[in-house]
């Protein structure tokens, strides 16, 4: 990835190869990765694995406790919670991935322009970022959700906007650190355009930081998505979003513990897995940070 000098063949991929080697030695990260792969498989194959559809209602089997037929029990409309949790992983992973991709894209653009051009541009963009950062994230997301309305697409947008500031700042920081390095000077004297310098020389060197942050952000995004759905702003019934399921289960907490237990466990396991993997990834990308 990093080809800032000559002798490309040697340099190519070497950083990633070492990273992967270190990652393989980190047990916690591998456990996280395995959990994530299981989750992803569950999400992809939900249609085949799930014994029931996510909206198969049957009032005669409402509020059934976990059994062999319904491992996670059934909810207030007689829907199989196991199937719903499984389908729900699709929603969560989708929201997590796409919202982070969106905010990485926008954040990288803002951050690299701001860091590379400096002065007034930097000042203006960063003041704007400051404004966004001075609102608690969840409040911003709530306001955006209220304006856009419910639905998965709007949820993704609302969550993505909330994490743009953090990516802009990280990219800006790395660009500032890089732009006075000699290889950039060399590129400038070779007559490379600004865009070429940013894309070909600067961004590849920021990749490590961005990837680590993005991994962690997926976890935060999934958490925000379920929080917003929990207060009724994100995804609506009958879509099996984990947070929305918890919100429904809350009313039946006295008699049916399973309705709120399993979707929550699913959220926790997902975030746990991403955090484990992200921590490991950070340590292996930058061994100096390892404590």
């Amino acid at each position, binding site marked *: 990835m990093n080809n800032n000098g000559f002798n490309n063949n040697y340099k190519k991929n070497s950083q990633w190869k070492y990273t992967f080697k270190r990652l393989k030695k980190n047990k916690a990260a591998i456990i996280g990765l395995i959990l994530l792969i299981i989750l992803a498989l569950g999400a992809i194959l939900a249609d085949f694995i799930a014994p029931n559809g996510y909206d198969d209602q049957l009032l005669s089997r409402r509020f059934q406790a976990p059994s062999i037929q319904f491992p996670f029990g059934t909810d207030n409309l007689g829907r199989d919670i196991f199937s719903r949790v499984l389908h729900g992983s699709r929603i969560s992973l989708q929201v997590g991935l796409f919202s982070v991709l969106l905010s990485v894209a926008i954040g990288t653009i803002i951050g690299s322009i701001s860091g590379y051009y400096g002065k007034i541009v930097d000042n203006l963009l960063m*003041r*704007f970022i*400051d*404004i*966004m950062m*001075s*609102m*608690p*994230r*969840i*409040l*911003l997301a*709530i*306001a*955006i959700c*209220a*304006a856009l*309305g419910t639905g998965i697409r709007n949820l993704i947008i609302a969550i993505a906007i909330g994490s743009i500031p953090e990516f802009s*700042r*990280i990219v*800006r*920081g790395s660009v500032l650190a890089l732009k006075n390095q000699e290889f950039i000077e060399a590129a400038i004297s070779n007559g490379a355009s600004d865009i070429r310098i940013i894309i070909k020389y600067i961004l590849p060197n920021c990749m490590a930081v961005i990837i680590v942050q993005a991994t962690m952000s997926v*976890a935060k995004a999934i*958490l925000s998505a*379920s*929080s917003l759905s*929990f*207060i*009724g*702003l994100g995804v609506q019934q009958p879509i099996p979003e984990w*947070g929305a399921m*918890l919100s429904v*289960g*809350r009313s039946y*907490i*006295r008699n049916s*513990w399973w309705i*709120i*237990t399993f979707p*929550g466990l699913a*959220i*926790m396991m997902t*975030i*746990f897995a991403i*955090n*484990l993997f992200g921590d490991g990834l950070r340590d292996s990308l930058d061994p100096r940070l390892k*404590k």
Partner: protein
Amino acid sequence: MYKYVLRRFLMMIPVLLGVSLIIFTLLYFTPGNPAELLLPEEASEEDIMKKEVELGLDDPFFVRYINYLTGIVFKGDFGISYTTKRPVLDEILVRFPTTALLAIASMLVAVPIGIIAGIISATRQYSALDYIATSLSFVGVSMPNFWQGLILILLFSVTFGWLPSSGFGSFKYWILPAVTIGTSSAANIMRMTRSSMLEVIRQDYIRTARAKGQSERLVKYNHALKNALIPIITVVGISFGNLLGGAVLTETVFSIPGLGKLMVDALNVRNYPLVQGSVLFLALTFSFVNLGVDILYAYVDPRIKYQYSGGKTEKKLTIKEKQRNEQ
């Protein structure tokens, strides 16, 4: 020092203006006509139009924004709540103490647990205690706050019947919400304390302190902790600010009549002035907490005080910005 506080204070003004503009714009585009929502269903077209004029809904965007802003700045007028017909500010002020108290109670749970656990696991790195504390904090960070609340209700009020599950009153009612929010903040504080302490412990001056025969206790608390404090203060400040905002979820779970619950209820009936007011109010509080944190830095770290008291200003970045950039 005063100059620093004043400057930080003045810097808040454009930020708050920006926040108000963003919130105003977002809610401006929110679907639904408040005039229609306010009137009974059988109201005629004409009545609705009249109501729109009365509420100033027919003015152009910027006129409405400026009116809203001047109302707030000069009269403390955040508008009238559509549902109760009372001033928004009154409604907010009635609810705010509950939210603030909840935040303080949770911090009382979070800060001691977080800092003590962090110090222990940093000073005894790789011991059994360290592993236990780190794994617990990992679980704490991964657990959604509102779900933790639900599970605590399930355990302590539904199953054992020890504590009330919702509502608000005597001390008993505070325990579950404060523990819910407190433990997850404690996890964050613990992680930051641990890594910050570990960084400091490796410094040369710690070795010097040990070499000159300083007792281990003094080394830990006087030399190490003091210098590790800045990132810890940042996290505590951020969690406190987030508690004020994030109370939205916990208050919903425990049905606590705080600002967060007020806002969610207002959102469900499209009571914009109340939503706008609550968000702005929370953002304002958040900014003040941040200001407090920045001032606290100067007390903890004399280098910062020096920088702002006319000493050489080699870098304009505040410590917090540096940290943000490093993260």
